[in-house]
């Protein structure tokens, strides 16, 4: 089952998703202990190769690795020779020569983690690439929903916001569909990809219709700095049309939960009073992120390419 790398949820089978979620559930128990560290990956080295700034995801991976006793090495743009114009693949090869047991990659360009995985001996884990995928985020969202609702199969999940530019949306669409949920996406027409319905989701430009009877409402972060004025007339108008508030949440099921990958633009995609309290589960998502990434590192770190070095294409 489980392949050597974790690049995209699109590549995974339902059985893979279930195995990762089950492992993450077991890892959660460690988070409730006084001593949260186990010796599982002792002597293993995991490199965090972040070409794009990230605090939340990088910290989550770092805590996850440390709880498994791996040595976590940060290699980020500001502190590396990337500023000396070394090519991405050269950087990756240099790191690979140091024989890490896994490399966690984030890059602003879609496809870079896959390219790096093709040249490296170590397993590669995608921590977000451009508008392609962010698999560990989707997996931690699946874990959160499974625990809140006791299942994923048969649920209705509405993802609201900038679907075009969101790797979180893409990974979640694949993840929830594979686990048997109905997935809806909603946003201004400029933020809905053409032919998104070919993925098996229903697209809406009306929030009310998208939320009707939903079990899970997932708001995406609007990238204010990049998009304001380009894809919608004003932030205020977006907040009024697609912002999730206690009022708009009435369209969804009474026990619907609200999710957000963070960081939240309060008062834009999510009303102020929703960000911190039930039915929002944003802090559970963060907590689950550590357990989920522990599961991924446990399942992948230190595993060799099938057939050893000679198995390389």
């Amino acid at each position, binding site marked *: 089952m489980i392949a050597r790398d974790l690049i995209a949820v699109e590549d995974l089978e339902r059985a893979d998703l279930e195995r990762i979620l089950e*492992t993450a559930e077991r*890892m959660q128990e460690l988070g409730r202990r006084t*001593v949260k560290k*186990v*010796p*599982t990956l002792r002597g293993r080295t995991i490199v965090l190769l972040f070409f794009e700034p990230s605090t939340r995801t990088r910290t989550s991976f770092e805590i996850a690795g440390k709880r498994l006793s791996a040595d976590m090495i940060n290699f980020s743009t500001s502190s590396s020779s990337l500023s000396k114009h070394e090519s991405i693949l050269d950087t990756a090869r240099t790191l690979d020569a140091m024989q890490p047991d896994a490399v966690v990659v984030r890059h602003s360009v879609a496809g870079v983690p896959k390219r790096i995985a093709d040249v490296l001996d170590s397993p590669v884990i995608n921590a977000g690439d451009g508008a392609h995928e962010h698999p560990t985020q989707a997996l931690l969202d699946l874990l959160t929903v499974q625990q809140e609702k006791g299942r994923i199969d048969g649920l209705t999940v509405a993802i609201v916001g900038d679907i075009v530019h969101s790797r979180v949306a893409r990974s979640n669409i694949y993840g929830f569909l594979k686990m048997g949920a109905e997935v809806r996406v909603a946003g201004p027409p400029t933020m809905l990809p053409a032919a998104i319905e070919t993925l098996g989701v229903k697209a809406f430009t009306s929030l009310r219709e998208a939320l009707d009877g939903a079990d899970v409402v997932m708001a995406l972060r609007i990238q204010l700095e990049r998009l304001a004025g380009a894809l919608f007339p004003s932030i205020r108008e977006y907040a009024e049309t697609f912002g999730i508030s206690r009022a708009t949440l009435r369209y969804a099921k009474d026990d619907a939960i609200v999710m957000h990958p963070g960081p939240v633009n309060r008062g834009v995609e999510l009303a102020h009073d929703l960000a911190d309290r039930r039915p929002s589960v944003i802090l559970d998502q963060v907590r689950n992120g550590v357990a989920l990434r522990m599961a991924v590192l*446990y399942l992948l770190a*230190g*595993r060799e390419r099938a057939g050893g070095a000679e198995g390389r294409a």
Partner: protein
Amino acid sequence: MANDYAQPPAPPPSASEAAASANVVLDDTGIRRALMRIAHEIVERNQDLGRLYLVAVPNGGVPLARQLAENLRQIADADVTVGILDTTLYRDDLISRGERPRLRRTEMPSVVDDRIVVLVDDVASTGRTIRAAMDALMDFGRPRAVQVVALVDRGHRELPIKIDYVGKNIPTRTGDSVQLRGEDGGLEGPLRVVVVPAGAAEGGAA
């Protein structure tokens, strides 16, 4: 068809046939008797039953620890907590190739500090699982003492680990597989301990 009797001996049994013909070395009655005797030995050895904490190594240790707790209630009116401690993350054989083993549930309902922890496992052999369980236990606290129950001790110790309470000693060859089984493959209903001879589990590769 008429020549059947002239055929050479049948090939070794397949995995499923081997499972069906596996040698039962301890049946449900035998297991119950052993667990009752062990409960008596635990009472005999430990004056302060209030400190007892039965910690099962999953999966096989779980039904055994529950039965031991029930026996201790019957014979000594002792209310003993049962915990479950998965040892997978403490194993010393997480090989680099192939899939990682499945994690099992850990449930430790009470603090370990100052308790007399009795680890309960189904089959003791190399001692590596008990070693892993002790390391895991120490991460939960500082027990006053640790003792070990094994329903079956099959020998082949590789570490200096002593089993305090043994249900039955069963001599085996290294490659044999000794398993606690219930009905339909799980650990429900009547239990039995079987020995699957070396090679049989792999479809008669020997």
